[in-house]
């Protein structure tokens, strides 16, 4: 057996050189590449993590913005509802006020109409009462009523002041109106009786007016002396209407 020391030394050097060569041309490049790939992967992971964090932050921001929008929407809805409620209340108040005004106006119109109708009815009732009284009075004997009414006319003339009587006599021709045309004897008697109270008067004229019902009217150009049931009925109706008007005004 032969053991060569030179070969041992050379092979030792050879293996050590090979270690260096493979380290230089094989292991280090491959290790560097693996490290570079790991670094790239870590960079990608870091980028992905950063992107994920950014996405999460953006999602959080969007959620916050969404919540803010929702809160603002609720706030605006509440404000709008409050405005609507205020408008509704105002409109209701206005409508209520208008309705009450209309109601008051309608009530006033209704009261006025009712009052008008009442007055009209009362007037009609008065006319009707007058008509009824007229019909009833027509049943009385004409001679008795005529004599009484003529006496009353003379009393009324007699009650007038003297200057007014003179003025009445001086106005001109007077007309004595009766419900029916008087006979000749009545005309003379009526003219004589008037001439005693109105000595300056011209002979009177005579006229018939059935509306008088009963009584007389002495009509001058400017003056009328009335003493008929028509005048009395008209006076009663007018006074009655006047009293109703006063009562309605007080109410």
């Amino acid at each position, binding site marked *: 057996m032969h053991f060569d020391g*030179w*070969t041992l030394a050379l092979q030792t050097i050879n293996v050590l050189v090979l270690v260096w*060569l493979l380290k230089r*041309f094989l292991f280090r*490049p491959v290790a560097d590449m693996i490290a570079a790939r790991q670094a790239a992967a870590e960079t990608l992971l870091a980028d992905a993590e950063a992107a994920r964090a950014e996405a999460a932050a953006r999602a959080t921001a969007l959620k916050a913005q969404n919540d803010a929008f929702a809160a603002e929407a609720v706030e605006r809805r509440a404000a709008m509802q409050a405005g609507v409620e205020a408008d509704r209340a105002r409109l209701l108040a206005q409508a209520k006020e208008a309705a009450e005004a209309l109601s008051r106006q309608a009530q006033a119109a209704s009261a006025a109409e009712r009052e008008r109708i009442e007055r009209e009815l009362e007037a009609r009732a008065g006319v009707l009462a007058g008509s009824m009284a007229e019909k009833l009075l027509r049943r009385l004997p004409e001679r008795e009523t005529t004599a009484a009414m003529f006496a009353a006319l003379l009393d009324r003339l007699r009650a007038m002041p003297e200057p007014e009587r003179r003025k009445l006599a001086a106005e001109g021709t007077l007309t004595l109106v009766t419900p029916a045309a008087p006979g000749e004897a009545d005309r003379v008697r009526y003219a004589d009786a008037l001439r005693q109270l109105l000595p300056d008067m011209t002979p009177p004229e005579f006229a018939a007016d059935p509306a008088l019902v009963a009584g007389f009217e002495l009509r001058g150009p400017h003056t009328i002396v009335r003493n008929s049931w028509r005048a009395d009925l008209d006076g009663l109706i007018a006074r009655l209407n006047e009293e109703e008007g006063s009562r309605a005004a007080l109410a």
Partner: protein
Amino acid sequence: MKIASPLETHVLFTVGPVPIAQPVVTTWGIMAVLTLVSWAVTRRLALHPGKAQAALELTVDMIAGQIRETMEVPPARYLPLIGTFLIFILAANWSSLVPGVEPPTAALETDAALALIVFGATIYYGVRVLGPAGYLRSFAQPSFLLAPLNLIELFTRSLSLTVRLFGNVMSGVFMIGVVLSLAGLLVPIPLMALELLTGAVQAYIFATLAMVFIGGAISEASHTHEGANP
């Protein structure tokens, strides 16, 4: 074919007083091939690897994983040495497939050189990691009485490395040479296939034992599990 004496070293030429034996020249050739292939493969590494780069990275990563699991340390510092052992011994053992080439690992000097490097690396890394005193104290573990045995083991295991690799490779080459000289051209092929397997296994064993020895040296309790002896 080595049919005369497997223990003889054939000197091809001399450089001055230095004889250049056949295993040395073969080793140079293997070194050139490995360096060129490594340079060719690694000169165009990319982040998106092709098939060849992926296979290369897988191989390197597998060796690094073996170092990490066996030595329980970060593999970067030990990867060139252990990886070179594995690749060189595998390439040297399989170089017997090239006609006319005798594997360098069939020469006792090559195996002794490899064991010598493991021996030196064990001491170097042990001292570097534990410090000189710490490394010396590791021989007295678990008892001071075992220090002589641990010291003897430091040398004998290197010797065992040499003899194991030399015996396996040399015997395979010698057997193939004998059978080829007796039977014919195609008869040794099954033996050559078996020799491929043996070469791969021996490369793996040598690298693993180197990891175990160095790992044991950098661990204070290393001497308790350094008896691996397949």
